[in-house]
């Protein structure tokens, strides 16, 4: 049994009276590719934002490699609105900013691509290396860190080669076609040297051919970089091909989990979501 990398425990996220994520529990084990699927507005991206520290959850906690990284309990206004279970199980607030979570080894991409628009592909990747620099402001300014700088540049070039982006190294990142921009975003996330890669709808807006390429690609980078991958996706082909396990979210609640075959045959999932496109 491999150890789990990510564990989400009783996570609830409320915005006012709206419960976007309701008492969610999930686990991602080392080396797995796990998908989180669900209809639009099911709260998938909110779940991502809770895991990566963009939002502090109203209740619940997130474990990363055996450490509790996010924890919160309902208080103040939330206590009144709170309808979730496990009230009182958590009594601490741990809400690190996203950068600290990324530093621990968790990197993400965005649903609507967020590349740094005035930077080239290479610079986009290089900037993501910034969090691993050990040089301080002074040594960086006066180029006393050239050994580190050189190593980082070489690592980035290597990464671009692996990602098959070396041809567009010096292009403006946002001038690339959509599929390549997605790949730059993944490269950028990989540059932070993560153990867990979170992909928010990596195939959104891609044509079938690009999607197929991406499917092969995600498997390849998992093996190459010894990663664990957790992704949100709409493209069922991709999810079913690639995933070791799948979680299904509907109206903020997890309604099913299991292997792709189990999910495909689960009546609740078919009712909620797959029923429409089952013949595909």
């Amino acid at each position, binding site marked *: 049994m491999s150890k789990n990398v990510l564990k989400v425990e009783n996570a609830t996220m409320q915005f006012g009276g709206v419960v976007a994520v309701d008492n969610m529990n999930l686990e991602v084990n080392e080396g797995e590719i796990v998908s989180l699927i669900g209809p639009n507005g099911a709260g998938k*991206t909110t779940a991502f*934002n809770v895991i990566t520290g*963009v939002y502090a959850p109203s209740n619940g906690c997130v474990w990363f490699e055996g450490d509790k990284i996010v924890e919160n309990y309902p208080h103040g206004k939330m206590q009144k609105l709170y309808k979730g279970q496990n009230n009182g199980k958590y009594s601490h607030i741990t809400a690190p900013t996203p950068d600290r979570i990324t530093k621990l080894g968790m990197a993400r991409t*965005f649903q609507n691509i967020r590349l740094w628009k005035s930077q080239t592909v290479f610079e986009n990747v290089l900037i993501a290396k910034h969090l691993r620099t050990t040089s301080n402001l002074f040594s960086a300014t006066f180029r006393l860190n050239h050994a580190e700088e050189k190593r980082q540049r070489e690592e980035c070039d290597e990464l671009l080669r692996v990602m098959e982006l070396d041809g567009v190294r010096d292009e403006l990142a946002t001038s690339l076609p959509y599929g390549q921009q997605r790949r730059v975003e993944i490269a950028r996330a990989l540059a932070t040297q993560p153990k867990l890669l979170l992909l928010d709808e990596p195939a959104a807006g891609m044509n079938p051919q690009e999607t197929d390429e991406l499917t092969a690609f995600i498997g390849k980078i998992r093996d190459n970089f010894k990663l664990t991958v957790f992704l949100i996706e709409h493209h069922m082909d991709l999810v079913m091909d690639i995933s070791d396990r799948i979680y299904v979210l509907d109206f903020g609640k997890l309604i099913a989990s299991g292997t792709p075959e189990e999910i495909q045959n689960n009546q609740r999932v078919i009712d909620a979501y797959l029923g429409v496109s089952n013949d595909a």
Partner: protein
Amino acid sequence: MSRILPYLLSGISVGGQYALISIGYTMVYGILRLINFAHGDIFTVAGLLMVYAAATMPLYISAPLVIILTIILGVLVEKVAYKPLRTAPRMSVMISAIGMSYLLQNTMWYLTGGLAKKYPTLPWISDKINVGGTTTSRVTLITPFLTVILVIFLVMLIKKTKIGMAMRAASRDFETAQLMGVKVDSVVSFTFIVGSGLAAVGSMLYFTNYATVTPVVGAMPGLKAFVAAVFGGIGSIPGAVIGGFIIGICESFIKGASWTTFSDAFTFGLLIVILGVKPTGLFGESLTEKV
């Protein structure tokens, strides 16, 4: 009481004047999300216009004329400096506002030769009267009432009329309002008309208490009025008015306690405290960015 009263009176009076100016800021910010840095200078221009107008005309002609000319200037500033930049980043529009303020100040300097102009004594409202044992000018008493009446009128206008509804729509979501057929250009023009008109009224009341007008004199009350708008929650008219009164009264007491050097600093200190504690101000609504 008798020691406090004069400060309280002058505080309420100055506060009312700040309130009138800050409405212009808060309305423009509410719709265009722009700090109209030129507003303080428009206020000064109104003061200067009054100097020239009152020299040749009786008050009942000069006062409306000044208000009308100030309104024209306000709308012109919008058309020249802000309208072409409607789709530009917010920073460019703000820079344009700063440039406009620079232009207005330099033009006023050129026209006046940089000399301080003596502000005319307006009949009746400059008269001295006695309130609770302290002598003050009549403007001190008129200001708060006039402010409140104008604000009630304005709030009614926004709540009841069609253009008011359009303004509320534009301030909630400028682009959607445009798509829904709201004539945003005329809404913006109307905002500037109201803002500049109130600034002109505010300037008449404000300068009555001071002997002279110089080209740069409006910058500071302008900024303070903006602070008042932020304090009350930017975009909210009652908020701006309450903010104006609070700042005016506090400032008056600080001056009374012979800390005059810090009366300006206090206003900005208040701004920083309110932004730190409640960035949306007293009555502002919060906006969150979606990730």
